[in-house]
């Protein structure tokens, strides 16, 4: 039991160390442009991706670095992508908000709110004809629940019993605006009933809970039972984007968030279970080491070649 939790801890630390390194690289100018970190939300991709099969398709958002990493995309080409290197997963063309690594079952981030949901339906639909047994997962935020495309996708998947899991990362904010002010009830899982599909509001800061529900939803999906909505309740420790002044935070909010965040919680749980602190801390050290190496390797790679900039517009 503590082995799996240590593995989760490592997986979460990989993501957090990656994101913190990204923040540093952005500060020093090696990364430019808008970047959305998932610090505080790591348990969701870690728990969810563990339940996926290689043939499954995953569609994330601009806040998707953690999803790419949890899905098994090597971090060096992710760093390279952020730094505009030829060796980036998209050869530098995607950037932070548009990672794509289909060969790892990661079918892309997306920076249009809600757009990935219908696309995931299509990936699931394809699976009905190609014998792959594929399920599709689409990830989006609480705010995206108010976007028309997400609604259309949920009904489409439900009506046609498509094997799709809709993962809503409810971190309480859409950019700088609290979701609670934009909906009558911010218990968003309840919306699943509108489409006749199951919806669960779960602890998104607990990788184990996410894993359980994801497995369950995928089982339903693969058996022909259609889609499920998983509302994963979480909080982001970082701002909406790097540079966000976070003036919208209420007094005491950040303290509360830090107490509840998944890595701290898991660490405390492991300590309580008698896992030695040194063993736990070694996980962080290991993750940071890997990440440092990857970032250095990526930084040393050549920039994308402007001579190729017009390639691949058409077949």
């Amino acid at each position: 039991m503590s082995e799996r939790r240590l593995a989760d801890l490592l997986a979460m630390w990989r993501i957090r160390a990656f994101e913190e390194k990204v923040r540093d690289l952005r500060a020093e100018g090696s990364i430019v442009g808008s970047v959305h970190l998932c610090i505080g939300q790591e348990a969701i991709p870690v728990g969810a991706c563990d339940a996926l099969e290689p043939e499954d398709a995953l569609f994330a958002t601009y806040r998707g670095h953690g999803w790419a990493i949890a899905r098994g995309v090597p971090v060096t080409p992710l760093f390279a992508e952020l730094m505009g290197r030829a060796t980036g997963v998209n050869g530098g063309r995607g950037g932070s908000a548009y990672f794509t690594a289909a060969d790892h079952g990661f079918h892309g981030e997306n920076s249009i709110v809600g757009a990935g949901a219908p696309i995931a339906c299509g990936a699931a639909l394809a699976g009905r004809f190609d014998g792959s047994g594929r399920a599709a997962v689409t990830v989006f935020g609480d705010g995206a629940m108010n976007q028309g495309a997400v609604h259309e996708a949920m009904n489409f998947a439900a009506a046609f019993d498509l094997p799709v899991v809709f993962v809503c990362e409810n971190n309480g904010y859409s950019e700088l605006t609290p979701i609670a002010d934009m909906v009558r009830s911010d218990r968003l899982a309840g919306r699943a009933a509108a489409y006749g599909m199951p919806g669960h509001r779960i602890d998104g800061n607990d990788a184990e809970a996410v894993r359980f529900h994801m497995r369950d939803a995928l089982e339903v999906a693969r058996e022909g039972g259609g889609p499920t909505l998983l509302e994963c309740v979480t909080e982001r420790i970082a701002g909406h984007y790097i540079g966000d002044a976070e003036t919208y935070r209420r007094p005491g909010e950040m303290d509360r968030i830090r107490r509840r965040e998944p890595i701290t919680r898991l660490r405390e749980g492991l300590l309580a279970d008698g896992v030695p602190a040194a063993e736990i801390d070694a996980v962080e050290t290991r993750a940071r080491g890997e990440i440092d190496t990857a970032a250095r390797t990526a930084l040393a790679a050549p920039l994308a070649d402007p001579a190729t900039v017009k390639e691949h517009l058409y077949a």
Partner: protein
Amino acid sequence: MPEMSGTGEVRKLSYGEAVNAALHRLMEELPETLVYGEDVGEPGGVFGVTRGLRKQYGDRAFDTPISESAILGSAVGAAMMGRRPIVEIMWADFSLVALDQIVNQAANVRYVSNGRLAAPLTIRTQQGGAPGACAQHSQCLEALFLHVPGLRVCMPSTPQDAYDLLVTAVHSDDPVLVVENRMLYFGAKEEVRVGGAAGPMGGARVRRSGTDATVVTWGAITARVLEAAESLAGEGVDVEVLETPWLNPFDTEAVTAGAARTGRLAVVHEANVTGGFGAEVVARVTESGVPLSAPPLRVGTPDTRMPAAPVLAEALVPDAARIARELRALVRGAS
């Protein structure tokens, strides 16, 4: 017995039937194809164009909710996974509720993934004016799509092109928008060669040769342009009519060569003038430095919304008489 040949068979088909024949063929020869959209399955389409597919191919042809974002978005996703979805947007006007999936999604997949992913979907739609049609069911929107790099666009006006271009579109590894026209669906039957190999994209059709001016056109209005050209011929004004059913890729060379030959250029389209693709054609030809003996001419619908009353709409959309008048002035000099 239909005439058979090495490159297929000749059948008498209307434009709508030609689309239907292409769809049947594509479902037959490409098992990756799917055909779906609102009312396209069981009912066979509101214009009957997808008739028989559901019966013949079962789950591969189906009806959808009225959810254009889901239709287009799912086509992008299915295409990424190796399917070749052929989806229908019933009227081009309706694409505006879901343009994101075409512009920000489909058109980006290949380029942004650096060629590692592709989205070979085909979007069939139809557009244009029809007697009594309202402002929200009349627009010619090709120019919007032609400003989107990464998206192929064609607009057949004959049964043969309706067949051929759709076959080419679905065989293409790129997202392609095929813009049909509901006024053409039920037109006269013509001989259509079906079953040949999928052709390449692009190219222009010399619908009429002539020496006094090169008139570039596309879509349903091509028939009116030809009518105008014929009537002008009786007056000794002899214009070349070049139809460009492929708009992306666009056969700039053929158009420029035509203009160079005749020394005069006109572009006629049903879309409203400002920001229409006619501007692009004029720009390409004039940029090329081809000497013209008269300023280039654009003929299109004036920049208004589209009224429903036929008497009003007819006052806007260019008819053969107006086209002839403008071409005459181009060739003879303004009167």
